[in-house]
């Protein structure tokens, strides 16, 4: 089932960023920079690509989405909430004593969370396993795994890359949130992945590189008919960490940080203005 707001993806992203800000400010905190780089990717997938049914989360014909960069779960939670997978009480208690949702996603803690992630380099193997299982069963479900560029430092990610092309898993799509910043520094200053698209192609994937903060570009690259049959699909989504809040954009400081009251007010004003524009 596809939800109807295909023309409102940008508006939905603006709402999601506001919801993330709200939760991060009121609770012990979260990885806000990465949440904001990945928001447009996740909104595009949930509202424009995935075949899913929030009223029946375990629907056997659904497409799967695994957020391998699990530290950015607040963006995922906010979208699942808006889709109707769970009500607002889940997120209101985020990271609170006795709450349901914590700082990394845990499978089945709430409807719609497909896999436990947060330790980088795990999600792609699990996603490849699910995609492979559906191939073995001759089922047409698609599997989407959203990774971070820092996560591509992990050797296990490349083991899974080799496996997926070996098994011709063209029902598997990865979107790499290439915000170019890791926790402490630029990815290029730590363990550069570039040229990322060429490396992925060399591993046997069908690759497109887009502006990952533009929904139309993601949508325009992700359709299976645009890719070579028999190859898993990779979208390198160039994004901006902290996208949407001027003082966070491209700033390593906002990988994980709690907002001070004045910072919150500025961020709230910027995101609200953007939403009302």
């Amino acid at each position, binding site marked *: 089932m596809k939800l109807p707001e295909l023309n409102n993806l940008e508006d939905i992203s603006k709402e999601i960023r506001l919801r993330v800000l709200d939760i991060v400010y009121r609770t012990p905190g979260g990885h806000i920079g990465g949440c904001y780089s990945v928001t447009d990717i996740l909104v595009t997938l949930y509202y424009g690509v995935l075949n899913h049914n929030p009223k029946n989360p375990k629907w056997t014909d659904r497409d799967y989405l695994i957020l391998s960069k699990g530290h950015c779960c607040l963006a995922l939670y906010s979208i699942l909430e808006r889709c109707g997978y769970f009500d607002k009480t889940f997120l209101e208690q985020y990271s609170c004593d006795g709450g349901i949702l914590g700082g990394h996603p845990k499978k089945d803690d709430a409807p719609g969370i497909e896999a436990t992630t947060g330790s980088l380099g795990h999600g792609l193997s699990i996603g*490849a396993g699910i995609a492979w299982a559906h191939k073995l069963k001759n089922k047409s479900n698609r599997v989407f795994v959203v990774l971070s560029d820092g996560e591509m430092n992990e*050797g296990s990610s490349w083991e899974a890359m080799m496996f997926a092309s070996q098994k011709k898993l063209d029902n598997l799509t990865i979107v790499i949130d290439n915000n170019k910043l890791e926790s402490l520094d630029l990815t290029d200053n730590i363990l550069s992945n570039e040229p990322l698209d060429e490396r992925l192609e060399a591993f046997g994937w069908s690759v497109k590189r887009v502006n990952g903060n533009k929904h139309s570009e993601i949508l325009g690259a992700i359709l299976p008919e645009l890719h070579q049959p028999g190859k898993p699909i990779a979208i390198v989504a160039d994004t901006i960490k902290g996208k949407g809040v001027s003082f966070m954009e491209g700033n390593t400081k906002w990988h994980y940080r709690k907002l001070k009251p004045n910072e919150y007010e500025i961020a709230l004003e910027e995101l609200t203005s953007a939403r009302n524009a």
Partner: protein
Amino acid sequence: MRNSFNNVLIESARKDDSIVLLVGDIGFGVFDSFRKEFPNRFFNVGVAESNMIGLAAGLSMSGFKPVVYTIIPFLVMRAFEQIRVDLCIQNLPVILVGVGGGLVYDTLGPTHHAIEDLSIMRSLPNMHVLTPCDPQEVMLSLKDSFSHQGPTYIRLGRGGEENLLTKDSIKNRKPSKLNLIRNGEDVLFISCGSILKEAILATDILSTDFKCGLINIHSLKPLDIDSILGQIGSYKFVVTVEEHSVIGGLGSAIAEIIAQSSFNVQQLMIGVPDTISTQIGKRDYLLKQHGMDASSIAKRVKSLLLIEKS
């Protein structure tokens, strides 16, 4: 052990078409018959163990029952975090079969010895840890594993092991329950895995002077605590015999039980000392070097009991 495992796997796969076998390019010739009968359910996923565990998790999440097979260090130590997160935190019914428990890959050296795996695996919530002592127990352990709704680790030897348990003993065996081999009075031996043979021989050697009890533990986790305590209660001395580091394995598990009981029992832990086993030699030689062969065990136990008598 490997052949018994293969036979039960085939038998189980005939009944359940969701069973699939993943290997990490290990097991030359071992699975030829499985592969022949189920060519679409045998997968060599390459020398990429971390990925192999993640794949098994994904397959399990999609309705398959994966059995994962490779040499223990590459399975347990290389892919440990995937086992912890993908299998144990998600609590998925994936069966991990490690080959080469203890010092059985003797001359291949310490990279291939597996003397820390029990310690590592039994620390994981949701994980069952099975240590069959002979080919008969391997068959039963695999059958037990298919009925567990979470992950299981089965520790195998290398192959060619003889049966140690009697037919009656096997007939009366219950999943996760201890197996009483011999009643005694002076000292209780507790062992697991194929080194049970050395424990049996040691009790034979000691039998002229002492009455030795002996129990076999095929399930290190869950551990049959009540029955073990029931046995320990009537002894002053307990000897644990395991082909594993003395840190964290069977000996530690028994010590944890004793420490939390009201019993006044002294324990001797026979196992690989906290050292890298760098000596070159066959398994029997290595066991002797570490005081783990039957005559060394008997000698160590005898001195302990004689000190008590004097």
